[in-house]
């Protein structure tokens, strides 16, 4: 197939073919990462701008490394936007950066739809590194890739995603990527954090962690934002950890060869016990590795070898 996308804004309309194509490309990128000289000139002379309106060392660093491995010039813009009401800043910022003619802008922003908005006002490609509660497409792809590397397939696997589903763009992107590739998806969390509309996505929804984890091949824990407790989504972290945290006892219900995932950073003792976070079942570090390869793949597909913007 031919890669035709100018932007990567979300996985909602990615076909299975496109997803596979990205994974294949990522495999080749991973080859580069195994060499002594972890660099190829594919994006030489191209500029990648990391435009992060939300603090995120992890994802930003991942994109930075990915860009540099491809010999791109990577520039970081961090903007602390204290309130979403400063909407005008985004349009102005977009126009300013666009005037500097980057090849790709990687953006993370607290408002859903911000990446789509940006793509309308810049002439270069846009990669969504997380927009509000909407999507985090590179995470959805790297999680899928990590699972494939571990299990050699996704189709038919029972994947349980547990935590604050309501606010999670990671969950939503994963629903698209894993769902499209045939996983049997289960969503679990407290009643306040699993919206009723979720059922329409084709996943099975439950508030019982045991039901979700039973016979699961993959258990993906989501980060609980500590501020949620303050706005009364659940009584206390203790109560949350008791019922929705993963410990060895609950995890024993999963299959023997089940793997544990987490997008990071982990709240140890809340979503995941120390023991499990460091166990051999955890592929959390593989996720990070896969992240760089996936991001290299997307940067390459969007900007590798093209002189003019499409």
């Amino acid at each position, binding site marked *: 197939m031919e*890669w*035709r996308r100018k932007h990567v804004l979300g996985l909602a309309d990615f076909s299975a073919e496109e997803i596979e194509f990205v994974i294949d490309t990522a495999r*080749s990128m991973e080859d580069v990462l195994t*060499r*002594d000289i972890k660099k*190829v*000139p594919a994006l030489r002379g191209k500029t990648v701008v990391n435009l992060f309106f939300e603090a995120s060392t992890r994802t930003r660093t991942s994109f930075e490394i990915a860009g540099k491995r491809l010999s791109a010039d990577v520039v970081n813009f961090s903007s602390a936007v204290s309130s979403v009401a400063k909407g005008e800043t985004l349009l102005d910022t977009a126009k300013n950066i666009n005037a500097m003619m980057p090849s790709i802008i990687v953006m993370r922003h607290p408002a859903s739809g911000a990446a789509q908005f940006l793509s309308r006002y810049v002439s270069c490609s846009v990669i969504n590194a997380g927009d509000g509660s909407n999507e985090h497409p590179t995470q959805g792809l790297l999680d899928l890739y990590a699972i494939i590397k571990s299990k050699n397939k996704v189709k038919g696997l029972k994947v349980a995603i547990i935590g604050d589903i309501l606010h999670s763009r990671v969950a939503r992107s994963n629903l698209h990527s894993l769902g499209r590739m045939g996983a049997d998806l289960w969503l679990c969390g407290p009643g306040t954090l699993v919206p009723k509309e979720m059922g329409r996505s084709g996943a099975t929804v439950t508030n019982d962690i045991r039901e979700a984890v039973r016979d699961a091949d993959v258990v993906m824990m989501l980060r609980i934002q500590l501020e949620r407790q303050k706005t009364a989504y659940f009584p206390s972290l203790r109560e949350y950890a008791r019922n929705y945290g993963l410990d060895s006892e609950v995890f024993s219900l999963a299959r023997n060869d089940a793997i544990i995932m987490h997008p990071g950073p982990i709240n140890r003792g809340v979503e995941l016990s120390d023991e499990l976070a460091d166990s051999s079942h955890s592929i959390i570090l593989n996720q990070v590795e896969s992240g760089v390869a996936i991001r290299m793949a997307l940067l*390459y597909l969007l900007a*590798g*070898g093209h002189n003019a913007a499409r």
Partner: protein
Amino acid sequence: MKKSGKKLILDTKGVDRVLSRLTHEILEKNKGAEEIVLVGICSGGVPLSRVIQDKIRSIEGVEVPSGYVDITLYRDDLSRAGYQPRLKRTEIPFSIDEKKVILVDDVLFTGRTIRAAMDALIDFGRPKNIQLAVLIDRGHRELPIRADYVGRNVPTARAETVEVLVGGETEEWKVVLREPPPGKGK
């Protein structure tokens, strides 16, 4: 007068004879198979390097390490390659340090592929030297690159194409010179 002229340059037997000669030349120049490694350039050079590896085995009784390299990420002409060239894999499961690397490709044309391949090899390690073996040299070099071992020189017009086709399990080879179809300019 055929619509798109096609001329058969080498058939299976022809290719086999040419590769035998190339193998002998390689062994002669390098005084044997010591320190030699073969690296085929994806994708045309891969089956060729395997044949050469087989022939060295039957002549010298030595198993020469063989791998392949995809040069897509090193090309300088991606914009001319059309939409988005698909990445292939690179497998060089041995060290090339201090080795004599025989790069193998099917058709030598502008020389840009070879330049990219050398860039890739140098990122892998520090070979003692790099030598180039090609089945067909069709001229029209754009860079100062030359092959050490040439199967056959085929003078061509720029718009013509030379295709090296390997067929199925029976390993039938065909080297074909194709005229461009009339009326299509580029």
